């Protein structure tokens, strides 16, 4: 039954995506409430899915790669809904919906929803470590989306090829400010998530520690470059896209290879 909730949620994100594509093709893109409403509805069904799954498991639903992907998609939607309207990033929905749709479609289609053998309740520190880290990834995903938007907008300005969506994008300086804030939000959450991992009382998985620290150092370097003012905003935006893509691939790889990652 819980998979149906997820299918409905995925359809909501699909609708938001299709609406955007149609509007762009008609060269009449307006950041109407439709996208926001579709994403909000998709988020409600995501939450319902995680809640049903959590009740069934009696723990935070992060027991396999399938749930990790859904939790990540939920984090992306949550952060979009929280910061999208606040920072006038309504168009971000046009970029967020495809990302969430892709994550959930992959999770639904790939044979990764395998029951986890462990049944005992995990340590609250372990639950905190996993959930906070994934919410951090949600922030990094949105930084990646904002980075993509920055690159698209910057490309249009440089090439002087202005299309109908151009005037609906947030200004470059606002996008850069949003990228900075999202990077900080993700970085703080990731730091907290990693720190929580040391209090689980379980043997430390060294591959995971190395990967987590690698991601942490990568984002720390981006933030440092941003605040030293030695790197152009375009490069910071590109680094956000590279960092998230790399981190997501590694997350998938490590989780796939190491059953120890799940709770």
């Amino acid at each position: 039954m819980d998979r149906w909730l997820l299918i409905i949620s995925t359809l909501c994100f699909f609708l938001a995506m299709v609406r955007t594509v149609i509007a762009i093709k008609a060269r009449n893109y307006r950041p109407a409430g439709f996208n926001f409403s579709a994403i909000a509805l998709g988020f409600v069904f995501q939450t319902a899915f995680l809640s049903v799954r959590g009740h069934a498991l009696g723990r935070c639903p992060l027991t396999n790669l399938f749930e990790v992907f859904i939790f990540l998609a939920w984090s992306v939607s949550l952060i979009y809904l929280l910061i999208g309207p606040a920072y006038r990033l309504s168009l971000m929905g046009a970029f967020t919906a495809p990302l969430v749709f892709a994550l959930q479609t992959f999770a639904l289609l790939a044979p990764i929803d395998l029951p986890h053998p462990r049944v005992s309740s995990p340590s609250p520190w372990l639950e905190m470590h996993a959930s906070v880290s994934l919410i951090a990834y949600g922030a990094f995903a949105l930084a990646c989306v904002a980075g993509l938007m920055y690159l698209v907008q910057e490309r249009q300005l440089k090439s002087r090829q202005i299309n109908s969506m151009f005037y609906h994008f947030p200004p470059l300086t606002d996008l850069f400010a949003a990228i900075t804030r999202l990077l900080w939000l993700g970085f703080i959450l990731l730091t907290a998530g990693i720190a929580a991992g040391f209090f689980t009382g379980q043997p430390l998985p060294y591959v995971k520690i190395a990967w987590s620290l690698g991601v942490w150092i990568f984002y720390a370097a981006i933030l440092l470059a941003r605040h030293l003012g030695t790197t152009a905003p375009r490069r910071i935006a590109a680094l956000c896209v590279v960092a998230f893509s790399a981190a997501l691939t590694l997350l998938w790889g490590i989780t796939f290879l190491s059953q120890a990652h799940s709770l």
Partner: protein
Amino acid sequence: MNLFCVGLSHHTANVETRERFVGHAAIDRILREKAGCTEALLLTTCNRVEVYAASAEPVATAQVARCLLAEGMVAAGDEMEAFYRHESLQCVQHLFRVASGLDSMVVGETEILGQAKKAYAAARESGAAGPFLHRLFQRAFRVAKQVRSRTGITRGAVSVGSVAVDLAEQIFGHFESRKVLLLGAGEASERTARALRKRGVRDIRVTNRSVERAEALAALVEGRAVPMEDWETHCREVDIVISSTAAPTPIVTRENLTPLLRDRLDRPLFIIDIAVPRDVAPDVNEMEGVFLYDIDSLQSIAQQSLALRRQQIAAGEEIIAEHVDDFSGWFVSARDRVNLAPDLPEGRLRTSGS
């Protein structure tokens, strides 16, 4: 009952002809007293002169045209050919198109709606607008609003100055803390600087070879004049440079800009070069964080916007067709009732129908 529109516009008449038939404040009274109109409204803009009227008996186009002429003037034969006439539902459709900006010289311009509202308010005040014009114009305002909000007809800037300001807004968002440097004191620079000032720019610096001209322009745009030899120092501090000098070769080059931008990598620089020949070397656009637009690129964007607006005309026409269809129900029934009972109270017509 006849509902009609007689007029001329940029489509049919040159500016000299439009000037001769510009009409006057008392036109609605004259149309009612001399031409037999029961209701009359004059809509004049720089591109059109139109009379919307209702009458019990047909009123000839020439009769309306005579009323539009200033006293003592006579219309030439070829001038009459410039007049168009729309009757009944064609008149309704025409007004909806005009109010929505579909018939404007710059498609999608919104000034026309304000002008139509003013014309309607004046006719209401003088008692020249009765139930037919009241219903017609109220609906036209609704239609215009819908066309604007449901299509992209008003989207994109269509003049060089407004394109430049819109681009600046897409780079910087807000202008309050932004600084602008005017290199040269050309007229186009002045217009763009004024537009930026209106949008909130507080710090405008003007530099020119002639100090007097720099000071004069600085006074006009509420900025301050700075010495020409210091332009590089100011360039380091500002966010927007508007250049329009008469220099025969580029004065802003990659070589002299590179050291100025070294410490401001995270702050974009928007350069608007409206000089011919150009003041800024084209390869400056390749520099990190610099966005250079010359007159050709600004004009090209204005043309793109206009083309995009034209693509939206069909969508606007669909909305208008729906409203004309809807309006026709009330119009035909009201017209029939007035034809059967010419003394029908005005209130009965206003409150019935769609």
